[in-house]
């Protein structure tokens, strides 16, 4: 995050008083326009001296699959997120560097004590149906998500909330049952809908977002048009956005190269270099929050109480070949789940695991038991991981271990590995996370659903809980550093790579900001054609 962006965020999140903000803005020589925007909670404008954006045009986006639903409290797919984000907004959103939150429907917020958050809502915002956005809509939305009968996949994120109180029409107060530091980052998924009991937001979406719903023709397109009453006047520049599902990767790439579509939400890595050579296309690349790992079942032989065997495997993963040959250079070796650019990343873990078969042999000599065969479960839904397993198979053969690769259809993989814990080793990729808690707690705390390795360590549990309760960033950072050092030492899994997010778009698309999470923020983009 730049110094200027950081300044705006510090003011919005209550870390800086108005006076201190104005003093620093003056010291940095920021324009009066910028200062006025920040005070009003608006996006910082485009860089000074930029071309005047052109209005109009429909942006055509190819998606790699049909979305599940446009209901923001029901959707569980990335494509669903990419579509509903245009229509529905939350109180806050992630900043482009994905390491902090910035205001959206809330103008600002403060935390008077460790368990209370007060949000001041933006005034004058209207839903697509004309209704004014108020505190009652926040309450209605929250109750909708928490309703057990509605069965929203977002519900687990908000279980720590004890109460949501309306202070007045433009102020709400969230009270936690205990300090819960990742709360603000979780809040991004609470997309606000208008208080319309019984309304079907999947069939007739109504939000406050920059684009409003026109139609969804199954298998053909989802069409959105500009919200002319968007709260940030003058935005968006586009007249509309049309999403088209194109599941076959080769077809998607041709559709972009021939100008049938303007944006690809996903692209085969082998095609990136071809697209980068095409003058009509611009490829955005950003190190992301997607990471692959090789995980071990911690409560079953051969890995149970056998750290030396786990470390032997951690040193038998040839990450360089995986980056260069399997992922075409669009990745880099990873040791921990959290990205290196994140404020909570611990630089000391770099090189904690590597590729050194002699070292792996030494660990193996200390291992007890020393199995002659190990099975690893992968899913053909992610073909890269099958290749990673094959590479590991060759390395382990040199150590005298036979690796059996078991391929399972995705839902079977979920059932066997996640639900039942019926496996020895697994390879999979995990995506997402903004607050450091997102990267560690649900994965490493004993008894959590996502703790697929059945890792249960009292010291780790204590560190995770303390990091959740700590309120200052410095204190949290120190705790997360310890957590990462412990993670690479215990090795319930060994991380393999961080993946780059890649998004190819037409060269006519301007002012697009890429994040490492496949966000599609079209509020400020425009088409130069």
């Amino acid at each position, binding site marked *: 995050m730049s110094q200027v962006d950081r300044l705006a965020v510090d003011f919005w999140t209550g870390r800086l008083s108005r006076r201190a903000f104005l003093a620093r803005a003056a010291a940095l020589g920021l324009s009066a326009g910028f200062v006025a925007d920040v005070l009003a909670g608006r996006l910082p404008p485009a860089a000074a001296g930029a071309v005047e954006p052109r209005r109009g045009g429909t942006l055509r986006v190819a998606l790699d699959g049909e979305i599940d639903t446009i209901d923001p409290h*029901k959707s569980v797919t990335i494509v669903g997120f990419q579509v509903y984000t245009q229509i529905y907004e939350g109180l806050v959103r992630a900043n482009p560097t994905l390491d902090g939150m910035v205001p959206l429907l809330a103008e600002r917020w403060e935390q008077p004590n460790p368990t209370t958050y007060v949000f001041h809502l933006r005034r004058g915002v209207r839903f697509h149906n004309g209704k004014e956005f108020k505190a009652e809509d926040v309450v209605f939305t929250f109750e909708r998500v928490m309703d057990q009968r509605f069965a929203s*996949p977002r519900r687990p994120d908000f279980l720590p909330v004890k109460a949501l109180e309306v202070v007045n029409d433009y102020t709400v107060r969230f009270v936690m049952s205990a300090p819960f530091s990742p709360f603000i980052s979780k809040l991004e998924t609470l997309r606000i809908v208008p208080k319309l009991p019984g309304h079907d937001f999947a069939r007739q979406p109504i939000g406050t977002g920059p684009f409003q719903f026109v139609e969804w023709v199954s298998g053909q397109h989802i069409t959105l048009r500009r919200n002319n009453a968007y709260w940030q006047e003058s935005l968006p520049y586009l007249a509309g956005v049309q999403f088209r599902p194109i599941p*076959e990767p080769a077809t998607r790439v041709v559709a972009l190269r*021939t100008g049938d579509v303007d944006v690809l939400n996903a692209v085969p890595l082998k095609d990136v270099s071809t697209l980068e050579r095409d003058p009509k296309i611009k490829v955005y690349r950003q190190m992301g929050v997607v990471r692959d790992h090789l995980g071990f079942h911690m409560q079953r032989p051969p890995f149970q109480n056998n750290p030396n065997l786990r470390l032997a495997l951690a040193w038998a993963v040839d990450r360089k070949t995986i980056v260069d040959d399997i992922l075409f250079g669009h990745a880099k070796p990873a040791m921990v789940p959290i990205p290196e650019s994140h404020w909570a990343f611990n630089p000391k873990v770099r090189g904690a695991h590597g590729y050194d078969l002699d070292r792996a042999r030494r660990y193996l000599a200390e291992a007890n038991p020393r199995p002659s065969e190990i099975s690893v479960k992968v899913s053909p839904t992610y073909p890269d991981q099958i290749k990673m397993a094959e590479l590991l198979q060759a390395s382990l053969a040199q150590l005298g271990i036979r690796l059996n690769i078991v391929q399972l*259809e995705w839902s079977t993989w979920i059932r066997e590995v996640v639900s039942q814990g019926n496996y020895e080793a697994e390879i999979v990729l995990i995506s997402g996370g903004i607050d450091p808690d997102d990267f560690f707690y649900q994965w490493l705390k004993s008894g959590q659903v996502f703790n697929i390795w059945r890792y249960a360590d009292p010291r780790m549990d204590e560190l995770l809980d303390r990091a959740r309760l700590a309120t200052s960033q410095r204190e949290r950072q120190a705790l997360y550093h310890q957590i990462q050092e412990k993670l690479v030492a215990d090795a319930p899994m060994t991380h393999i790579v961080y993946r780059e997010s890649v998004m190819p778009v037409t060269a006519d698309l301007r002012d697009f900001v890429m994040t490492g999470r496949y966000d599609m923020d079209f509020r400020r983009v425009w088409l130069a054609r």
Partner: protein
Amino acid sequence: MTRYLAGRLFHMVLVLCGISVVVFVMLKLTPGDPAATLLGVQATPEELARVRRAMGLDRPWIVQFGLWLGRVLQGDLGVSYISRKPVAELILTRFPVTLELTLVAMLVAAAIGIPAGVISASRRYTGLDYSITSLALFGVSMPSFWFGILLILLFSLSLGWLPASGYAPVARGLGEHLRHLAMPALSLGLFLAGSLARFTRSSMVETLAQDFIRTGRAKGLAERVVVYKHALKNALIPTVTVLGLQFGFLMGGAVIIEQVFAYPGVGWLVLIAVSQRDYPVVQGVVLVVAAVFALANLLVDVAYTWLNPKIRYGG
């Protein structure tokens, strides 16, 4: 004939019931469940159980199937678990697309395959015959999705003549509609064109060796008349059978082709529905496709009597 038709229709209903049972059981035996799709990976076992109960998935299979069948008999195919759209609406939007694609693919296959087979048979053991049979072999062996991608690279990327993907309703103009339909229909029809050519050839060769052809030639009929009027009509009977039977396989092939070209038919719909364990959609689509397939077979049998008056059905 009427009695025959009534019997066939009754038989069809039994077959459809059988197919529905088989599909239902197969879906139930497949791991994974719609509750897990809906709740995402974070769901706790308690939440999953609650959602399954709410969806009626905790009841005995026989009860679930009975309820579904009862609704179908009232003309209600249910609602998609995932998108919440009525299944009937999804099928109505998408089935005509697949039907048209399949019929046009058949037309393309017949227009290429039958003449090729006839020419091959009447010019037996010449260079032309060898070229046609080789091409037919190529058509039969080429995986249709691969051929589809090659077509995209040629006609969209290199020549820029046709759109690489998507669908244009007729409302956007017939020309635009056909430009989107051309490549999917050609890739889908390729396999059938190859097998039709081979089939027509062998059927023609057999017919041309028969006595009535020799008689015709002895009477001094022109070779064109012998081949196209007398031999072809007789040789077409098995070919029509093949066409009718292939209709179902084309529907199967459409699943792949629709994926490649992002063509919004019922095949692609069912593929997504299977991966999401969206039972009502899978059941509804299979039922409709099976009904159409059974009807197509019935039509083939009726077409026989027109082609060969010697074939008569009881009653």
